[in-house]
């Protein structure tokens, strides 16, 4: 049995890999477009970290530690970069391939299954998110914003954020009917960015607002990346990881179900 399970798993991975290869070939001529997404996060870092940071100076964390505001904000913007890279890739690009270009219609006439398509898109989104994260971490280090060796772990932490938002983006791509739906998505994303604990500790919000923040996936991503890059570890991080992983699994599963029911008609 295990031999069969192995060969099935290998075939399945190579199928999602060929979806990844397709995206690679398609984007080969448009790398500037891919890189521009990462530059946006860097602009945020400069504007808020160095601009606002210079005004605010140092802040005191709820735990009592005192750090520079730039060091506080940077991990959150990093988490945001990981989110945006994958969310845009999976939602808008997958929606275009699904509804407008009908790319998947052709692909499903081959041995590929909706599951392979969904997984392939997740891998690709992870790569795109990874590029943004890489650009960002290098910049953070160059400006002396990486205080601890734990920061090395901020990179894999971003993979969890990317995974979660890849799943979410895929689901949205299959649920959305037309482009105006994306305006709503961007509004929600912006709200998460502003209120998910990016600029101030969540503990400083009024009590009634805090549960709302805890539901936001970006909040969990920010907590994780910030904790690791400041070397401020807590058991709550396991919960953050669990939340993000669950979101990734649920999102990818729903997406492949939706692709099945839309394309296997």
């Amino acid at each position: 049995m295990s031999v069969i399970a192995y060969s099935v798993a290998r075939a399945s991975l190579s199928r999602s890999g060929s979806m990844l290869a397709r995206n690679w070939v398609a984007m080969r001529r448009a790398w500037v477009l891919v890189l521009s997404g990462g530059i946006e996060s860097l602009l945020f870092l400069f504007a808020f970290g160095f601009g606002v940071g210079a005004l605010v100076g140092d802040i005191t964390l709820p735990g009592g530690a005192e750090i520079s505001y730039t060091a506080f904000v940077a991990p959150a913007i990093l988490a945001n970069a990981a989110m945006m890279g994958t969310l845009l890739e999976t939602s808008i690009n997958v929606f275009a391939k699904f509804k407008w270009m009908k790319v998947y219609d052709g692909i499903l006439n081959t041995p590929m299954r909706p599951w392979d398509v969904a997984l392939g898109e997740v891998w690709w989104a992870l790569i795109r998110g990874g590029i943004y994260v890489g650009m960002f971490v290098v910049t953070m280090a160059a400006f002396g914003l990486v205080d601890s060796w734990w920061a090395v772990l901020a990179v894999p932490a971003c993979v969890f954020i990317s995974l979660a938002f890849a799943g979410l983006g895929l689901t949205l791509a299959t649920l959305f009917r037309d482009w105006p739906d994306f305006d709503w998505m961007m509004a929600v994303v912006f709200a998460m960015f502003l209120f998910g604990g990016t600029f101030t500790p969540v503990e400083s919000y009024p009590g009634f607002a805090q549960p709302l923040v805890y539901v936001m996936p970006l909040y969990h991503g920010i907590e994780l990346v910030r904790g690791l890059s400041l070397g401020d570890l807590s058991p709550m991080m396991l919960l953050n990881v669990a939340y993000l992983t669950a979101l990734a699994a649920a999102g990818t599963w729903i997406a492949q179900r939706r692709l099945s029911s839309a394309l296997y008609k």
Partner: protein
Amino acid sequence: MPAETNQTLVRAQDLRKRYGDFEAVRGVDFEIQRGEAFGFLGANGAGKSTTMRMIGCVSEPTGGEIEVFGLDPRRDGTAIRGRLGVVPQDNTLDNMLTVFENLTVYAGYFGIKRREAKARAAELLEFVQLSGRSDDKVDDLSGGMQRRLAIARSLINRPDLVLLDEPTTGLDPQARHLVWERLFQLKQQGVSILLTTHYMDEAEQLCDRLVVMDEGRIIAAGSPRELIDTYVTKEVVELRFNGLHTTDLAEIASGLGGVGAQIEPLPDRILVYTDDGDDTSAALEVRDVRPSSVLARRATLEDVFLRLTGRALAEDEA
């Protein structure tokens, strides 16, 4: 090896597909043999494409049985699709890729290695006469070229059976003939072909055997010659009356009793089915009906279709 003791590629029994209240395919039976060019002939909405999609394992039957290569599409879709070549009605080419990449990337979906994929892609572009357009974007190709590329793509995995859904719909006459030539060549190479069409001449030229579908059912089956022999006479005399209204035609037709084997008034002409066109034309002259034109010709599949469905295909055209 799958349980393929004989040469039957597809076997369907009482196959059905229902969408909500609408039953698109209402219990069809057919068998497709290896090496055969098999056709589904019918108007739009007859259930041809739906049946094709069920064979292609991208649509799950809601009733009946279907076997492709001796396998069950509900369970073995991946294995079956790996041995099929599919040319969908709307091509579904990847317009973010070049012509050449459309073939090599598609080969990847079948797990074909890159070197092999490139070799096959070059060979297939040669076959469909698109070698000079390798690096062009798909959107820059004409409709006929896109269809030829879709045909090339469907052959990348050296399929045991090629499914073509209306391969020449929407193409200009020249492009149609190019596609027909390629399909005819494939046939000669022994590739099994299954195509849907609403063009009678296409079915007559390409299909060894076909079924006529109407409203989700198969209403006739056989070779083009068999169908003509069974359902219509050897020849047909077409009478046209310039300037006369459809109701006038019906009246004239009712006065033609006794001429030929059967009379069929259509909106624009009257068809007289007969075994001897010259005899019948002579007999009509005696009747003093004064048509503006008389054409005696061999019966075609189109006549079969008109007899069977009692209406012109043109009515169903969008």
